């Protein structure tokens, strides 16, 4: 059989704008594209931003459909939404790393139920973050401060757990993003150990990826990973402020640094606020001349707006769009994913 060749990611568009409430994002932590093609974006906001904590709903055309899950401790409210996923029945699941609970909503944002409690016992969690649902219908959650992956039913009944604290195979250090592939394999962004770990559906360790290109190009505190049906892996290499694409043999195919442009919402803002828009047109926002003495990607990204800055999540939309959510830039960069024979 002719090997499948992956065409490198192609920049498509940017979504979002920073906003303390309503249409826009503020410190987005994750995104999820549901079957209805709507994109659900969790926002942590800042400093107990009571209006800023929310889930924003939009689509790829930047049409805006409102928000839900606002700040608060009551049912249907969130303090610090960290991850979001959905099931085949039109339910959304949001982790809250402050309350250590998982809240379930429908696609309109109506609250259904919540479960989970804070602690380190076997059915408890401390600061859950990444969340995914497998083909088996179970919920996989990075139980970050307990350094393990917890598996629950969608009703919140505890099923099992993978891993413990450490840096050996099968152990974790503050895991973040989690993904379950079509084959049931579980991929975990083992953030504190700067590696991706993969497990089979029984929870047995399969593979560890800490570097690509024969020991070169180390991963640096990856935040998120998603695997497509061909086995290609998309990794948010958070500490390096890049996204890496690996083939099924875990060889590096492509690494991108980001190339955001103005989203529809950003363009509308700058058209309305002409003084700001005109002065921006006259500015050189790609000027690297002053940054000769630093190679720190986080610093470079603070200066150059188009680059990824704190890419916290990579998610696929039907395998032909990759969404890269950037916390510090309050936006999502979208890339076309191409596959040909």
């Amino acid at each position, binding site marked *: 059989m002719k090997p499948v060749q992956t065409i490198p990611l192609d920049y498509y568009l940017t979504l979002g704008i*920073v906003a303390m409430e309503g249409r826009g994002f503020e410190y987005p932590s994750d995104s999820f594209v549901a079957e209805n093609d709507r994109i659900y974006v969790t926002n942590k906001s*800042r400093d107990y931003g009571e209006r800023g904590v929310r889930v924003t709903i939009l689509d790829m055309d930047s049409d805006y459909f409102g928000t839900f899950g606002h700040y608060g401790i009551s049912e249907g409210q969130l303090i*610090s939404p960290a991850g979001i996923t959905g099931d085949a029945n039109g339910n959304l699941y949001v982790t809250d790393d402050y309350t250590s609970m998982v809240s379930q909503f429908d696609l309109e944002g109506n609250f259904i139920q919540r479960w989970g409690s804070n602690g380190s016992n076997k059915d408890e969690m401390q600061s859950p973050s990444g969340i995914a649902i497998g083909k088996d219908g179970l919920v996989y959650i990075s139980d970050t401060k307990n350094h393990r992956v917890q598996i629950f039913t969608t009703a919140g009944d505890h099923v099992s757990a993978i891993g413990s604290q450490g840096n050996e195979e099968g152990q974790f250090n*503050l895991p973040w993003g989690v993904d379950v592939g079509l084959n049931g394999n579980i991929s975990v962004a083992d953030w504190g150990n700067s590696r991706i770990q993969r497990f089979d559906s029984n929870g047995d360790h399969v593979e560890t990826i800490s570097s690509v290109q024969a020991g070169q190009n180390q991963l640096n505190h990856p935040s998120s990973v998603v695997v497509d049906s061909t086995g290609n892996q998309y990794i948010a290499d958070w500490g390096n402020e890049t996204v890496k694409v690996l083939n099924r043999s875990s060889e590096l195919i492509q690494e991108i640094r980001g190339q955001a442009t103005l989203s529809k919402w950003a363009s509308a803002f700058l058209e309305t606020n002409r003084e700001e828009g005109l002065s921006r047109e006259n500015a050189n926002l790609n000027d690297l001349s002053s940054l000769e003495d630093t190679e720190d990607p986080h610093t470079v990204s*603070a200066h150059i*707006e188009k680059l990824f800055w704190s890419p916290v999540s990579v998610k696929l939309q039907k395998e032909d769009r990759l969404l890269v959510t950037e916390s510090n830039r309050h936006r999502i960069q979208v890339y076309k994913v191409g596959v040909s024979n």
Partner: protein
Amino acid sequence: MEKIEDKELELLSHLIRRAGFGATRRELEDYGKYSYEEVVETLVSPKETNWMGDYLVRRFDGEASGMINAPGSARRWIYRMMSSDTPLKEKMTLFWHGIFATGVPKVINGRVLSDQIEMFRDHGLGRFDDLLLRLAKDPAMIVWLDNQENHKNSINENWGRELLELFSMGVGNYSEDDIKECAKAFTGWTIGNTEYMMVRSKRDSDWPYGRIAYHFKYLPDDHDDQTKEFLGHQGNFNGEDIIKVICNRETTAKFIARHLYHFFVADEVPVPSWNEVPPRDEQAIDELVKAYFDTDHNIAGMLSYLFNSDYFKSKNARYKKVKGPAEFAVGLLKLSREFEIPDRDMIPRYRQIGWMGQELNNPPSVEGWHEGQEWVNTGSLIERINFASELLGNQDNTGIKELIDTVEEVLDENSTPEEIVDECLTQMGFLRLSENSKTAVTDFANGVEEDREKISGVIRLIGSTQEFQMS
């Protein structure tokens, strides 16, 4: 191992309170493996820094990563101060922030303020000339003092004036003409994309995608390259030349010496009075001035001299300085280890420091904060005591739990309340209380039955004593 005398540990405790944020007995014993002079050398010439690290802070405190506003910058700094193993570096960032006071109301951008703090950390113990030059190029300072509006054909004197008045020599040591010539030398020293950044700053705009960090830009076409006369020197001066002239002057050495004495040894009168009120210890200032020139304007060299001096080491110098709010709070955060991983609960902690009177990255004016007794009033004292009580009284805090465990291990069931109080003071870092304070804490200990609660209560009460407010 040779036993370290308690009086040596008490002296080290004094040193680490002043040059850092305090240390427990266990930490002091680690310091005590070296001579006092060796500890001083390690403090002033740190090799590597270990702290909880940027990655942890950035992951678990988003605003301390994106820094839209000042609180994010300040929180990152607090995490760093409380967990760093090079405490003097952090203390010096506080020191320079108090002198080169730059604030959010004009700068707006938290990341830019954080970059300035980072610069103080990296260069605050080096040559003063180098620090001043970096300050002149620092984007936060440029915007804070309007140097982006200082043009060849239309000078703005703000930076030039404060460079001489507040940052190097003090009032009375230069003329109005010197200020103008100084300003001319810094024309063309601005930030990149000035217009766009200033429009955003004026509108407090973080749209569309959050803050963009500023960078220094020199515009030769906007620089006045005419001959200038400054403090008796004549030449086609640029900013670097002006800083060289300033740093070679004895008045500058005296100014810095008095600031160091004020911050590390004993409270002086507020800076605006320095022209009229002589230093409380003129000989100490003269010796520090000599150290400035002997070490080629090196701040670490001056501090090495200061920390090894008799006037610093004297028992009479101890517990005589009111801790600044940030210093006070960081000491408690370090002792209690409330945040081993950054947490959203740092947000109220940061706010409490502001309520005590020191909102980091937001000084009351370009003069910074007036220190000493002015830190304390009825409201701020209540805040301080509440803060100490919350942190020291929480047995879930790792540092507190370990303190109680250690005291329990050392003492036994027959220990008297006096012995319990003494042991708590020792384990908290060889602290000393006045007789009145000690009696009050001992009376409390007398009234509690359960040992662990007694020790916990004593530790908590020590945090509310007058001596605990002092360094």
